[in-house]
């Protein structure tokens, strides 16, 4: 049963990831990424990470992807030219990715970490619940938590500065002045 669930999740995740790259229209790439993220949430559930799985679906597949869909619809489908600045990029790039995969596989399969070859220890029922993650986040990792909130604030301000209305208008006027 667990094998079926794992392979269903794995096929969904890899299929979604490949579809993200293969789709020519960015809009479909975003939808493929949603499939990928939901499959990953299922895998997180198999790993007893209930809170992370829920956060993955709500925050990632929900909120972040809405942002992506909005920008993909706003920008529209841009045609990617077939012209290649680096000769043979279309063949070299998958080759490099395959080389990276081989390296990672050697590192994982050749590792001496004996815990990897077990299913992991038996876990208490509270493992991965919001209670446990919340306790860790607010007690042991409080500074990390605060730094993350600061980072989110800076990112929000940065996005407003980059894409805000007033800024764009000023830039339009500048462009018109020089034209």
């Amino acid at each position: 049963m667990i094998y079926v669930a794992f392979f269903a999740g794995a096929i969904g995740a890899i299929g979604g990831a490949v579809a993200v790259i293969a789709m020519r229209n960015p809009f479909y790439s975003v939808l493929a990424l949603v499939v990928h993220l939901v499959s990953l949430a299922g895998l997180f559930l198999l790993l007893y990470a209930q809170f992370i799985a829920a956060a993955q679906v709500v925050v990632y597949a929900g909120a972040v992807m809405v942002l992506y869909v909005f920008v993909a619809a706003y920008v529209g489908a841009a045609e990617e030219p077939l012209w290649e600045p680096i000769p043979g990029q279309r063949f070299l790039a998958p080759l490099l990715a395959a080389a990276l995969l081989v390296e990672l596989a050697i590192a994982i399969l050749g590792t001496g970490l004996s815990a990897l070859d077990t299913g992991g220890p038996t876990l208490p029922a509270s493992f991965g619940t919001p209670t446990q993650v919340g306790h860790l986040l607010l007690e042991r990792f409080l500074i990390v938590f605060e730094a993350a909130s600061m980072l989110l604030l800076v990112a929000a301000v940065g996005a407003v500065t980059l894409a805000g209305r007033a800024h764009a208008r000023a830039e339009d006027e500048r462009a018109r002045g020089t034209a």
Partner: protein
Amino acid sequence: MTVTWYVVLSAVLFAVGAGGVLIRRSPLVILLCLELMLNAGNLALVAFSRAHGNAEGQVFALIVMVVAACEVVVGLGLIVAIFRRRLPLNVDDLRELRG
């Protein structure tokens, strides 16, 4: 089901994401491929957390999600700004930083 399966899956997903960053030239799709790589890292973190019976890896995965959200917000802001200035949405045409 040993933890190795999950770690190998995360390596495959990371390689797919890296390949996407190398192949595609639309900044939007490159951001999506970065998401793939970050999520592969998250899967590895959660798998190791399961292997050791220690939930600290899950907190780390949560923080990675926060960082990914920040990266998305700034990246999409940049894309919208590029689009507003009617520049081509192609990373090869945008490689020169002068305005």
